[in-house]
């Protein structure tokens, strides 16, 4: 088991001189939990930054990823790289005695590669802290809200240790299966191409077995050859029929010309390619205007987060967390929304361009292959008809080839030498028609008989039909075979994925149960039930490889959970998920740092966070930072074994000045011991009494006047009266009732120290009076405090009693004699 004994920072973030955060007490080497109080900007976050950097394998502090910050912002600005070191050091408490003290030192020469005191030990630390053990206020709802289903799945895979299964699923889904499908599509495409050529050759709409048999029999019928009843008989007969081919030189020439003619006839220029290319080109030209933004696509998520964070800020003037410019808040929100909109559009445009180019590449490749075959046929014909010229087709082939090598290879920077225009395609078609005419004229010129010409044409047609049909049948057979094989592989793959998913679902169920438990401690909300992490199995790109949080809200299933939750509920759910992950995955490291996270909770829900820590993380070492003094004092009271510390101040030259903190009672007593600090003691006591009176009244449901405004709070006298009345109603003669009245007598003294007291009233209070007031107050506090569960009593409606959480402290009505005796004591 791993805990931390000491965190030391030097020359890092806001801390210049070496500064220790000691997590042990004298005489006890076992680390303890700690609560550190410090005002905002007093240096607390430097420790969290240091810890994040120390535990990051990538040596990064995420929130400093913005431009012009990054690693350059890690060392203290006054650090002289030649003399001073910037480092973070952790002294571990390791029950296995493997890890002791480790130091990560900033490397000014290579700022992304710090110097590690031991590479191996750091590797062990990175492995041990599966979940980062620090949680900042702004990160509470990060997992739930700021990640897509696929990202959540990857994160869970990483935390829960099923990364290799997740990678394998990914491999099957995005690498193996698409490759198999591509191959299958390729075979299917070839079969379709052959069928197209065959149907053009036969002059039919389709190229079925029946079509081939019918057209073949029709041709043979012209020569008084009886029809064949099946395709195989027809195919067998065609070679026999071809033997009728003329053997004279004229006949051979006619045959060759006819073969060339048929081959040329197969070629069909693409009518749609020029338009598709023009559209693609214009799409790319438009996109080039957005080129500067392309490099910024990666910051989309940063802007998203900035926007989410910004909505929580109350200042009117803020700095853009992405570009660093100072803005009025509203204008900054507008600026970020605009940037986000632009970048999202650029990203979508970029993806659309990539899809268009991929389609164009495949169309151009097909057209180029056809053009090459056409040129070969022209060459054959030219050997007989020397006047045949096919410059346009050569130009077309060169243009397609140039397009493939240049613009299609690099659309953003490449250029188009010869555009594929409709005019060019028309010229190629015209040239083809011209050549076909020349071939036909040549056939007439050599004066074969009409019968010879028809016979040569029919032999060539039937021979080509036979070849194309056999090729088509071959392709169809290969396709059927490949489809069956791929389907068999898909069946195996589906079975395997199903087994992997069952395993992952079982693991999700395990953590879901805990999330639900923690959420119910944080929020006793009966309308939210069955919180689960579920696999997204709906059809879609990432089905089975994406996860989401689902819950039942008013008995209706909702996924993703954030669709219906208020910010406050989301915060509680975020905390429940985080604490679950810590408990579930950081099994070896019982150490958590919470940086001001209670700010994300409603005031009345903050106690529940302490309940969660107490009930479920009692054996964990918690380091809690807060800037809320009232909350700080509450934690000291609730967890007496925690180390209380406070930041007295912050100086540029040194950083945070950490001191031992005491309870308010001890602080008041300390000040009272010094005659010059009576005012301070009185002021502290007044604040303490006022806040605790509020808390006690709330706890026992005392009726208090509604507070209309911030400047109109109930007075101390009202609070004393309300507390007394409620206590008397419920406990009759309990000594606490009398003690309230005794303490109330000192209210006029305490009133001298309220912040709105007249400064020149001339009233001075003797130290003895403040001391007596303090004594009476703490006596009263004791009546309400349970030393076992470290909590004040509360009113329990179901039992109609005033008692503490553990039930050991109870304010009950007692008999008058007994009450008198108690008071006398």
């Amino acid at each position, binding site marked *: 088991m791993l805990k931390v004994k000491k965190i030391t920072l030097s020359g890092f973030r806001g801390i210049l001189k070496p500064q220790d955060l000691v997590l042990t007490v004298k005489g006890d080497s076992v680390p303890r939990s700690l609560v550190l109080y410090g005002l905002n900007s007093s240096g607390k976050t430097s420790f969290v930054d240091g810890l994040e950097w120390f535990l990051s394998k990538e040596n990064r502090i995420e929130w400093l990823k913005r431009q012009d910050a990054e690693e350059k912002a890690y060392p203290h600005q006054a650090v002289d790289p030649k003399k001073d070191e910037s480092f973070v050091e952790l002294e571990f408490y390791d029950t296995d005695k493997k890890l002791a003290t480790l130091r990560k030192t900033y490397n000014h020469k290579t700022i992304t590669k710090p110097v590690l005191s031991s590479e191996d030990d750091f590797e062990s630390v990175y492995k041990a802290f599966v979940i980062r053990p620090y949680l900042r206020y702004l990160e509470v709802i990060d997992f739930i809200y700021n990640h897509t289903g696929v990202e959540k799945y990857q994160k869970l895979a990483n935390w829960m240790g*099923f*990364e*290799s*299964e997740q*990678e*394998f699923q990914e*491999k*099957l889904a*995005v*690498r*193996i299966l698409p*490759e*198999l499908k591509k*191959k299958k599509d390729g075979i299917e495409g070839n079969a379709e191409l052959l069928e197209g050529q065959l149907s053009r050759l036969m002059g039919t709409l389709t190229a079925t077995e029946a079509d081939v048999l019918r057209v073949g029999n029709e041709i043979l019928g012209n020569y008084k050859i009886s029809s064949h009843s099946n395709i195989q008989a027809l195919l067998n007969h065609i070679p026999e029929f071809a033997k009728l081919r003329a053997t004279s030189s004229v006949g051979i020439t006619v045959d060759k010309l006819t073969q060339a003619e048929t081959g040329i006839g197969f070629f069909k220029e693409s009518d749609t390619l020029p338009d598709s290319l023009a559209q693609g080109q214009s799409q790319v030209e438009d996109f080039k205007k957005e080129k500067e933004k392309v490099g910024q696509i990666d910051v989309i998520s940063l802007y998203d987060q900035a926007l989410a964070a910004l909505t929580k800020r109350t200042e009117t003037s803020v700095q853009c967390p992405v570009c660093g410019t100072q803005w009025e808040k509203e204008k900054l929100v507008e600026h970020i929304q605009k940037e986000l909109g632009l970048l999202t559009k650029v990203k979508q445009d970029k993806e659309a361009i990539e899809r268009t180019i991929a389609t164009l590449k495949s169309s151009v490749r097909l057209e180029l292959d056809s053009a090459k075959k056409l040129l070969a046929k022209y060459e054959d014909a030219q050997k007989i008809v020397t006047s045949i010229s096919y410059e346009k087709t050569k130009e077309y082939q060169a243009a397609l080839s140039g397009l493939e090598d240049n613009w299609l290879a690099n659309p953003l920077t490449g250029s188009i030498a010869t555009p594929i225009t409709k005019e060019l395609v028309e010229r190629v078609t015209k040239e083809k028609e011209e050549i076909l005419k020349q071939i036909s004229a040549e056939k007439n010129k050599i004066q074969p008989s009409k019968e010879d010409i028809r016979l040569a044409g029919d032999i060539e047609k039937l021979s080509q039909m036979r070849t194309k049909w056999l090729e088509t049948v071959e392709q169809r057979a*290969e396709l059927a*075979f*490949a489809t069956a*094989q*791929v389907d*068999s*592989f898909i*069946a*195996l*793959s589906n*079975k*395997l994925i199903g*087994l*992997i998913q069952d*395993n992952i679902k079982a693991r999700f169920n395990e953590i879901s149960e805990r999330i639900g438990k923690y959420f119910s401690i944080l929020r006793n909300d009966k309308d939210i039930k069955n919180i689960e992490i579920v696999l997204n199995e709906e059809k879609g790109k990432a089905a089975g490889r994406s996860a989401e949080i689902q819950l039942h809200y008013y008995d209706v299933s909702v996924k993703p959970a954030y669709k219906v939750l208020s910010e406050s509920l989301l915060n509680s759910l975020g905390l429940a998920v985080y604490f679950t992950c810590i408990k579930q995955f950081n099994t070896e490291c019982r150490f958590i740092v919470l940086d001001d996270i209670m700010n994300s909770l409603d005031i009345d829900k903050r106690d529940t966070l302490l309940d969660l820590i107490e009930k479920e993380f009692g054996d964990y070492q918690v380091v809690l930072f807060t800037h809320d003094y009232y909350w700080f004092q509450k934690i000291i009271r609730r967890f007496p074994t925690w180390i209380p510390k406070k930041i007295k101040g912050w100086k540029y030259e040194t950083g945070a000045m950490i001191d031992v903190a005491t309870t308010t009672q001890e602080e008041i007593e300390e000040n009272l011991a010094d005659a010059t600090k009576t005012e301070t003691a009185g002021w502290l006591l007044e604040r303490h009494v006022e806040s605790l009176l509020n808390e006690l009244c709330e706890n026992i449901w005392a009726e208090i006047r509604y507070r209309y405004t911030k400047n109109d709070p109930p007075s101390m006298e009202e609070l004393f009266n309300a507390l007394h009345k409620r206590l008397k109603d419920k406990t009759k003669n309990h000594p606490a009732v009398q003690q309230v009245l005794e303490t109330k007598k000192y209210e006029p003294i305490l009133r001298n120290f309220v912040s709105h007291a007249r400064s020149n009233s001339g009233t001075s209070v003797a130290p003895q009076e403040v001391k007596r007031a303090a004594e009476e107050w703490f006596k009263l506090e004791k009546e309400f405090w349970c030393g076992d569960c470290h909590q004040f009593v509360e009113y329990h409606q179901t039992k109609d009693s005033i008692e503490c959480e553990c039930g050991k402290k109870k304010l009950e009505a007692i008999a008058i004699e007994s009450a008198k005796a108690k008071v006398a004591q």
Partner: protein
Amino acid sequence: MSSEIIKKHLDDLKKQKGFDSDFVDLLATANDANEDGRDTAAKILEVIKKRYVESKENNS
């Protein structure tokens, strides 16, 4: 990174009837060697091609 869970699943699938054992072996190798998906796909296609040639030979 190879997965012990996947290895076990593939062992079980190999024992079951109804799944192509050559494909199971290929996936097992892909898992053990942390093979790139495209390489695995190429091997699968090679097996399919070889089987097709054999089936043609057997039918002729």
